[in-house]
């Protein structure tokens, strides 16, 4: 069986892109930091990391990466995983104060900073579909997914909220497995 060459782009405009690069490098996955439309060209996958969604959104617009990501994702030539701020940016609907412009890639509604300020940040151990052991992750000023469309698969819940979801080639996580050295979700994403 021919194996497709995987290059995972990591959007490196603002946020914790370096932790994703370190995790993927330890898995011997080819990684490309993405700061321009040219950087995105050879990528088969793209991680939009945690950071501030308002900041990343402005930088997506000024670089033209917003349109490039949307076009390739809709043409199914790019898989996208949005984490925390990234999950906000891929959602079709964003609620909460001063929402950023959305890429609108996955049919979910997400509420920014719904848990509250930093004192409400927490660690959790999650039961995730297709993963045979608990997955550790941190929730940092995390958003909450308040609605998922009918074609969205919920892979993990925390309390009553979906925290890892997927629809086709687009994934959204409200938590950070990469900060707890958890490779399993990244592995599932790359295999998709």
């Amino acid at each position: 069986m021919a194996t497709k060459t995987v290059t995972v782009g990591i959007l490196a405009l603002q946020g914790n892109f370096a932790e994703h690069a370190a995790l993927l490098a330890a898995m011997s996955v080819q990684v490309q930091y993405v700061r321009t439309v040219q950087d995105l060209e050879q990528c088969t996958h793209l991680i939009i990391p945690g950071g501030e969604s308002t900041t990343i959104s402005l930088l997506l617009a000024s670089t033209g990466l917003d349109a490039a990501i949307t076009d390739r994702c809709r043409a199914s030539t790019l898989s996208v995983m949005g984490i925390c701020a990234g999950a906000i940016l891929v959602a079709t609907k964003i609620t909460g104060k001063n929402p950023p412009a959305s890429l609108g890639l996955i049919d979910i509604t997400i509420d920014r900073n719904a848990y509250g300020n930093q004192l409400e940040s927490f660690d959790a151990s999650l039961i995730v579909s297709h993963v045979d052991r608990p997955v550790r992750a941190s929730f940092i000023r995390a958003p909450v997914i308040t609605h998922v469309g009918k074609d969205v698969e919920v892979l993990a819940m925390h309390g009553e909220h979906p925290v890892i979801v997927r629809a086709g080639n687009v994934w959204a996580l409200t938590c950070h497995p990469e900060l707890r050295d958890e490779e399993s979700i990244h592995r599932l994403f790359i295999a998709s």
Partner: protein
Amino acid sequence: MLKPVKHTRNTLGEDLARMLKGGVIMDVTTAEQAVIAEEAGACAVMALERIPSDIRAEGGVARMSDPALIREIREAVSIPVMAKVRIGHTAEARILEAIGVDFIDESEVLTPADPFDHVQKASFSVPFVCGATSLGEALRRISEGAAMIRTKGEAGTGNIVEAVRHLKLITRQIAALQDMTAADRTAFAEQERVDANLVESVREAGRLPVVTFVAGGVATPADAALVMSLGAEGVFVGSGIFKSSDPQRRAAAIVQATTHFNDAALLADVSSGIGQAMAGQEIAQLELSMQHRGH
């Protein structure tokens, strides 16, 4: 195998600091300024009553800001809100924790409250960022529980030289650890009054264990690009934005320069026609050196 480092770490606070990387944290004194900062792309704001250049000009004792002002700023924006306490002022820190700021800056910009000790930060849930001028000072703050470090630079001067000095000094001192014998490293730990295991962990990683920003003197997009190219993980801009002639455009330009610090053509573009930078001061002419506050 190293023994575990004895100090208590604020892991969730260190995680929040990671989310700020590659970003610009801007000083704001009103809700209106906070909105300008957020719209320009700030990854967080520092809420305070007087920016450092005004503290320099007006003198007097500089204290924690009115909690009502901090709340008002927090209501106006969605990004993290930080606020400053005086060095060693545990009661001010408890007040900021009670009102739920996202990060506390134990800052030399305010008048120090305790001549002997910094705040024992490990007993707080809210994370702290602290200034440092050297590796030893950074490690003392991390031992006390700091979740993030920034260079001190010389706040309110619009002069980048001290920020560069502190960033390079810390980088060089970390590099020097690699060439030291075990006995020399033990002596360094004793001299700097820090845990030897913490020094060993820095040697192994080749960096500080927490996110490291630059502060104190950033006034232009080029200043931000300079410190990012020297290894800073993000920048604080204090007086540099709201003491300039066109805060909106300068703030947005500094955000662009922090992300695209390696793209000279883009830096030329964003540096063009953004009005007058803050006036700035020679370090040798200063009446007050803030970087020597704390130890």
